[in-house]
């Protein structure tokens, strides 16, 4: 009997709508709750979906737009989970969804997972941020994939900042990313050739 009571309590807890969603109108809240529940059932995190709905509510967006945004994010999180695996953390999935939205392919996410030790959050986020800065998705993907095996999170952030700085000074976004990648000495497509028998040139100090 105790087990049955516990089971019922767990069920009630699992299906209760998040109280934060009361800021939505009843119709929108019902649909968003269903989307969130469905996502949770497939192992996706609820929090990013709830936050997206709350963002829409605070910004005064119509219910249809909120529902569309939450559904799209749930779909992106699902693609990200398929590409990265079921053990991926919520922050990684959220960053991966942003990278997908920026133009990264699911195959790129899988490659990134294969070459970089977790967590992948910063690498994925930097990829999305580079595209948001104007770097073409293909260039951003190539650069991040090349940096990923060895660069620390701080190195990736510094790389992104350097590219953004160059862009703000007038450099074309794609060119800025390529030149900065060259300066870090990465060996994938952007490396300056070393003399035969000589080690590759040492990367310069950070600006």
């Amino acid at each position, binding site marked *: 009997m105790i087990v049955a009571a516990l089971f019922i309590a767990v069920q009630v807890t699992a299906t209760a709508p998040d109280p*934060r969603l009361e800021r939505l109108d009843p119709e929108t809240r019902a649909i968003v709750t269903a989307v969130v529940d469905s996502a949770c059932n497939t192992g996706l995190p609820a*929090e990013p979906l709830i*936050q997206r709905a709350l*963002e829409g509510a*605070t910004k005064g967006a119509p219910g249809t737009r*909120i529902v569309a945004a939450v559904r799209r994010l749930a779909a992106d999180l699902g693609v990200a989970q398929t590409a990265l695996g079921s053990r991926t*953390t919520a922050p990684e999935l959220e960053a991966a969804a942003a990278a997908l939205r920026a133009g990264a392919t699911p195959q790129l996410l899988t490659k990134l997972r294969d070459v970089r030790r977790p*967590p992948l959050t910063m690498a994925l986020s930097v990829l*999305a*941020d580079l595209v948001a800065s104007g770097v073409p998705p293909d260039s951003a993907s190539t650069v991040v994939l090349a940096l990923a095996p060895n660069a620390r999170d701080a190195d990736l952030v510094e790389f992104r900042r350097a590219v953004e700085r160059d862009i703000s000074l007038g450099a074309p976004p794609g060119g800025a990313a390529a030149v900065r990648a060259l300066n870090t000495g990465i060996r994938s497509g952007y490396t300056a050739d070393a003399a035969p028998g000589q080690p590759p040139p040492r990367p310069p100090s950070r600006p």
Partner: protein
Amino acid sequence: MFEQEDDIVERVVRQLRRPVSIDPALDARVMQEIADDARPDAPARRPLVRAWPWLAAAAVLAAVLIARPWTRGGDSSDVFQFVLVAPQAASVSLVGDFNDWDPARSPMRTAGGPGIWATVMQLAPGRYRYAFLVNGVEWRADPGAPSAMDDEFGTPSSVVTVGGRGRGS
């Protein structure tokens, strides 16, 4: 960019390869301890049974801590300062994924001069969307941060990412 890590690895390997020296008198001391315990007049050792309740309590506490549902992040949070220059503003709020997009939760205060609005947030690992709400009506992105690409609600947002493992829903 990565030579420091190589140096650290080399130093660790050198340290691990050093032979471990053992005190030659150790064997004699151990045998003496055993002989002392074997004497009939040796004091009885405290039975381990007395420690069981404490061990059980510690195990229960550890189980509760491990089974505790983790909130977002929680293992390596970072402190961030958010700043907006808005000389004409009467109020500015920081609103985002970290405070349920509730303008009342993170009001910003002028700091360092008139029109310079600032606040500090502690953030767990993750990627957060946020924006500034000026005078309760005007949404502004953070000019010093990457912009969120998908402004699906028609107003600009920015992004801050905190590295680290992160856990939770």
